[in-house]
């Protein structure tokens, strides 16, 4: 969705400078998810569907409270439920709200070939602009969090917008507004990091979670969605939250060195062939010359 009131900071596959670059400064926004106070009520799931007008989809019982196995093109916000047995045999039921992480270095954006289909606003929100999306799905490959989802009918890819439309009007995202326990917070990245660290310290000092910490993975430059986890050393137990996510190496190679190498090779090849032609010319002047059986006629000395 296009947000004229938000300014773009990064833009996919765009030739030339970023539109409006450097016109104004703005602080980065951030969503803080405190998994230690999430009760898996799914209010955020419903709020997300309602605010974004996402159509219903069918689900089937899958031996879990989790609404569906993964987010969908029309379901951007999913709480992952995980039963986890700790070393001392006690049970934890971990609930993690899964959605776009709004990476500072978004792999989706890096991988996207369509001009302007993915933008990152100056406030850090990574947003898909479906009208520019060509449906190639490279963003799916670029994302280390398995977030962008393809709609085979519209042939476009969709994901959480961090309610860019609401945020641009000074409102919090719909999920934040709906959260009953206040496990979701929204504010500037600095404020949220502070709050998260304070909570993590409280968990370590007062609640026996000695490994509690904040998940703000540096591999993707930090994220616009950060988690407080009971055990930050094992994010995988929260429904496969990657420990050290980064834009896939091959995507980096492809969009980095390979691209320059390829461009160089292609341009070099063209120049080389052209120069070769200038230097040596065709192997023969005309077909007719060949008929005359004159050796070497076509070749330059």
């Amino acid at each position, binding site marked *: 969705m296009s947000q004229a009131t938000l300014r773009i900071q990064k833009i996919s596959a765009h030739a030339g400078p970023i539109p409006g670059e450097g016109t104004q400064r703005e602080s980065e926004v951030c969503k803080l998810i405190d998994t*230690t*106070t*999430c*009760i*898996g*009520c*799914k*209010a955020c*799931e*419903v709020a997300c*569907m309602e605010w974004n007008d996402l159509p*219903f*989809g*069918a*689900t*089937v*019982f*899958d*031996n*879990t*409270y989790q*609404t569906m196995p993964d987010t969908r093109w029309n379901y951007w916000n999913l709480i992952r439920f995980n*039963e986890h*047995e700790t070393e001392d045999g*006690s*049970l*934890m*039921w*971990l*609930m993690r709200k899964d959605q776009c992480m709004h990476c500072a270095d978004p792999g989706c954006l890096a991988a996207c070939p369509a001009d302007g289909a993915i933008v990152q606003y100056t406030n850090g929100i990574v947003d898909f602009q479906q009208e520019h999306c060509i449906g190639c799905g490279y963003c799916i490959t670029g994302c280390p969090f398995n977030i962008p989802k393809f709609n085979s009918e519209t042939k476009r890819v969709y994901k959480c917008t961090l309610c860019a439309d609401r945020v641009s009007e000074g409102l919090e995202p719909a999920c934040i507004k709906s959260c*009953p*326990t*206040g*496990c979701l917070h929204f504010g500037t990245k600095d404020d949220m990091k502070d709050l998260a660290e304070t*909570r993590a310290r*409280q968990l370590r000092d*007062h*609640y*026996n979670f000695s490994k509690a910490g904040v998940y703000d993975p540096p591999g993707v430059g930090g994220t616009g969605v950060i988690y407080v986890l009971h055990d930050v050393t094992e994010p995988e137990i929260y429904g496969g939250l990657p420990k050290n996510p980064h834009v896939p190496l091959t995507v980096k190679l492809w969009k980095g060195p390979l691209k320059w190498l390829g461009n160089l090779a292609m341009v070099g090849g063209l120049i080389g062939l052209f120069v070769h032609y200038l230097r040596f010319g065709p192997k023969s002047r005309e077909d007719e010359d060949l008929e005359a059986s004159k050796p070497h006629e076509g070749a330059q000395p």
Partner: protein
Amino acid sequence: MTNGWVDIKNTDMMLIMGGNPAENHPCGFKWPIEAKRNRNAKMIVVDPRFTRTASVSDLFCQIRAGTDIAFLGGVIRYAIENNRIAKDYLLNYTNAAFLVKSDFKLPADADGVFSGFDAKSQTYDKTSWNYQGIAGSGGKDSAQGYTLGAAAHPPSGAAPSPPPLPERVSLDLSLQNPNCVFQLLKKHYSRYTPEMVERITGIPKEQFLKAADLFTSIRKDGDIKKVATIIYAVGWTHHSFGTQIIRTAAMLQLLLGNVGRAGGGVNALRGHSNIQGATDMAGIFDNLPGYLKVPTPADTDFDAWAKRITPKPAKPGTWDTFNYWGNTPKFGVSLLKALYGDAATKQNGWAFDYLPKVDRNYSWVQLWDNMYNGVVKGLFAFGMNGVAIGPDSKKNIDALKKADFLVVGEIYPDETSEFWRSPGISPDEMKTIQTTVYRLPCAGFAEKDGTFTNSARWLQWKNTALPMPGDCRLDQAIVAQIFLRIRDLYKKEGGKFPDPILKLAWNYTDPSNPSLADVLKEINGKALADLEDPATKQQIKTGQQLPGFAWLKDDGTTSCGNWIYCGSFTEAGNQTARRDASDPSNMGVHQGWGWSWPANRRVLYNRASCDLEGKPWDSTRKQVWWNETAQKWVGHDVPDFKLDSKPKDHMGPFIMNPEGVGRIFGPLAAFADGPFPEFYEPVESPTENLLHPQQAHNPVVKKFRTPDDKYGTVQDGFTVVCTTYRLTEHYHYWTKNNPMNVQLVPEPFVEIPAEMANDMGITGGEKLKISSVRGHYIAKAMVTKRIKSMLIDGKKTYQIGIPIHWGYRGIAEDEGKTARTLTNSLSPTVIDPNAFTPEFKGFLVKVEKV
């Protein structure tokens, strides 16, 4: 709730048991989380399943459904043994020091029942459940305990009048007398050892001790400042001893000095947005609005009724007592004036004869039993899906088959209005069902205005959000039109006793569709003559709204539809519509938000938050206090006390009890089944009662006797303990019509322990048939580690859980995607003897693959 939702943020310790607030009260659950986040409060969750509440707790104990009294009794024992009690509070604000009659016997000394039990009638003679009076007092003519409970039962209405409380009660402030309440309490729960708790509840001893230690740690080393709260819901009420579970919690809280204090109390989480309001407005048959006891045929006139239900003070020793229920006649007369207006006069006993007299038990389960037996001929079912929500669905369906008519007011076609299409009824049988069903389209919650009374006793006005679709009508319009037509019929045709109908006050702006603001004004009450407060000289003119129940009179000069709601709609306007969120004390009092009964008071019994001198136990959590200069009680909250009662007068803070103190011992008719809670097994239980095998179940609980009433045993193969509950994602039986909810949880399921699934070769998603002796339920298996096998008296026992939300009408049901069975096909018809709530939890089933 004694306290309120917001107040939970003030707590240091939470015991959440018999409730699953994270799932069923997610919005209110922000306050427990606040307490954790801001006060480092700890949360203990005790539940048959590891719930979403347990997932954010600090300690979880998996308990066998229905053994809560054993657990809580064990905690009481632990608190006493380890001296983790609030000594000053206990001594001065509870009846711990009261002496009990010497012929009172505990179950340990009387074959598992209390003294006075008559096995034939399954009732108690409660004479021995009384305090010792100080010589020369008591006896002749003082009133009895005000709770009617048992008095509503006898069919003839000839309520046997139990003896009264003594006018002055003997105390032993040393708490050493073996007949004092404290010593009896200690003795009674001395049997609830950690070993016994483990054998009964299935909670390993170490785990139980951890929980008991953590909960009572607030009173470690004589600390009185910290506060613990107990939070419960229908997990405690859905038992044949539900009231007694809550009693045990209340006793524990009194023992620890937690009642009346910010962050403390015993807090019931109501299961619907307005259940508290329904209860306040006589939702239960033995109440009139404001918890006035309903008259019985034995109450021949107003005075007899008033005398029976108005308690006289029972002063402890030299202490003072307020005995607020002493004002009962004022509430009664004002109610009758509200009901019958000018037709209620002093001469006709305030039209007392117009009031229906309750001749027997009209509780939910009894109604359906009566319908089954052909006594009840028709049913108006509004805003409830009777077939699905009651126990033993088959019995309810069979009952409806025998009724003449059924009127259902609903927003969806539901199981009740289509009972004749329930699975198992053949097309041929359908033709034989003669019940006439009228289906009335009603308005949904967003299409109505009015108030909701929440768990915290707050009345909050809400506006209409949407217009009603199609031909829908408001409930009050339907009721009004039925009333007006019946009145017309009486006018035209007369009848045996037309006066109660003809003279009913019906002074609404639009009589055929009364506005709820009109109704609320009527409930609040008004002056019928010019009134003046003798102390303040404040005047109220005839016709003005009353500012509070202190103004109510028993001389017919006031009318009030519900005394506890008096003050909700005053001359200053609709108080329930106030939305001032300010909270100067930061204690979550919010005096300007909505209106809280009674008297806009947010924490009940808040006098108990202060020591004897009137100083708060914890100066950082000041609620009310004695202002020596002004010589009165003041505070952030409205003091729940006689404002000018000096601390040295030693008036008890529990002003609604005739003795003015909290009842650790429930004397006389307070409870049908014992002055102390004793652990009894659910009616269907997997084991004998380890405390007294000769008395397994609650002795006063009666089984029902229709052919549909069957009770299963382990010997019949019903070995698995089953509990039922609701999910966050659904709301009772109607969200199965909403695609959003259906998407969140699409199908019925049964939660079974992974170990059991392993034993039986069940995989997740496989279809299971759960059978009780009454019926079966088909749903997919949710195999989970969140329920573990238990050792009950050393025997491996499994427990399963079934959410209730599905039936035979709904999106998935109509599409044939689910099995169209009702969870309550499984549950037994058996009820708590005090509150008449069915035992939906802790019955026996067997589990098979389909």
